């Protein structure tokens, strides 16, 4: 496997005295679907937030599609910290689905989805609307376009969140525990939409989740994070049925025990 679309090269991230990522090496191939699992506080969200440029880094280099994300190449070839212009350019590759949906409550579902395509990509209102309608169809909410987020169930909100992220046509879609904030009976409808996306060949997906069965089903690869490092990774079969590390075994035993099947 060559030419990864995402590459973390000895990435360090600290919050004050707390080192959250300690020289993390991590690669994702184009079109790959990768699930990230691991205990609370192990740095899973931090990895996604660094990619979405919501969080800076304190060391190492993150590369997206061959270009450094948090750095820019100076004319003499050295790397200097990225400017906002560079970050804006890089961000067009990525989309994010948030645990708490983060929809804009004062805008209709349609406006939530069209706002950025119109203002950032420069689409006409008509084009943006058309694209939004297609996406709402995809997530099964074609009839909800004129509602406000406050009028939707959690599952519907998250499906709007997915449509909103897709409207920017990202190459890489990041999901941070997309079903953790949902009532158990609403988890399925969101997972069905993500499952559909997983069939798309070109889309690279990074999914932080506690849904072990779902991760097993859709992932090409599963990474077990522990204290800011990848403790173990492999195909779902390898990792779930025959983990090498005791730490992985303990974690899996604990989560499968407390959540047989479908909680987030």
């Amino acid at each position, binding site marked *: 496997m060559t030419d990864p679309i995402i590459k973390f090269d000895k990435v360090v991230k600290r919050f004050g005295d707390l080192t959250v990522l300690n020289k993390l090496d991590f690669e994702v191939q184009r079109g790959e679907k990768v699930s990230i699992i691991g205990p609370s506080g192990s740095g899973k969200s931090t990895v996604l937030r660094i990619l979405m*440029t*919501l969080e800076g880094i304190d060391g190492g280099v993150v590369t997206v599609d061959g270009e450094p994300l948090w750095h820019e190449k100076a004319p003499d070839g050295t790397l200097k910290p990225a400017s906002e212009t560079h970050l804006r350019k890089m961000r067009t590759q990525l*989309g994010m689905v948030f645990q708490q949906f*983060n929809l804009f*409550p004062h805008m209709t579902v349609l406006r939530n989805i069209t706002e*950025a395509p119109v*203002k950032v990509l420069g689409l006409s209102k008509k084009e943006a609307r058309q694209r939004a309608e297609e996406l709402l169809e995809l997530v099964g909410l074609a009839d909800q376009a004129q509602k406000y987020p*406050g009028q939707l169930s959690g599952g519907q909100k998250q499906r709007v969140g997915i449509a909103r992220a897709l409207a920017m046509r990202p190459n890489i879609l990041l999901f941070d525990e997309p079903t953790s904030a949902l009532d158990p009976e609403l988890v399925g409808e969101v997972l069905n939409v993500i499952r559909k996306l997983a069939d798309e060949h070109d889309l690279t997906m990074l999914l932080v989740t506690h849904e072990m069965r779902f991760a097993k089903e859709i992932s090409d690869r599963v990474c077990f994070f522990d204290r800011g490092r990848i403790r173990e990774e492999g195909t779902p079969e390898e990792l779930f049925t025959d983990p090498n590390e005791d730490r992985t075994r303990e974690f899996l035993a604990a989560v499968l025990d407390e959540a047989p099947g479908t909680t987030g």
Partner: protein
Amino acid sequence: MLFGFEWDLSSPLAFALSILPILLTGLLVTLQATVVGFALALVLGLVWAVLKAAPSRIISWPVSVVIEFIRDTPLLVQLFFLYYVLPEYGIVLPAFMTGALALGIQYSAYTAEVYRAGLQAIGADQREAARALNLSSARTFTHIIVPQAIPRIVPAMGNYLVSIMKDVPVLSVVTVLEMLNVAKIVGDRTFDYLIPLSLVGALYLITTLVASAGVRLVDTWLPKEGIPLK
């Protein structure tokens, strides 16, 4: 006689009715001072709030000091300052403008805090969603943050509008002919203070109740989740 209206001292009721038009003239000035002072407070407060949020401490620190100074000094002191000190530097404003300016400056310290709190109440999740969608920071501010802050800001501002109205009588000390000052002049001339002052109280009560009801009406009409801008 005052402002062309004669008073009728034949009975308390006749007296009250005859001075009502005079007091209403004063009420008009009170309302004008309220509106101008409020408008100044809204604009100046926004300027303070924006400057105070500036990333550079060279800007934000002096602004914090100014706001604190305004907040911790009485309105009357500021009024005297504007009325007696500014002319020494060649800035002579009409009494009414001086008064409205003092009200605006005094209340800008409070409105600045309302803006700050209202904007800050819009959580990081909204900013992060906007950033993930690559919206510019200007667009995020005007179309994501501000529309959601408005329903939090407006009710507090409405309460300050009522407070400003009740502070207008302070302007009488620099000769502004607002309602209380007019009532006092009537009393001075007729040696009857009870009726003019009672009327002032009643008129204040009515205007305050109306204004408060208006504020509540706007409050219920505003969508809690925010107002989308075009």
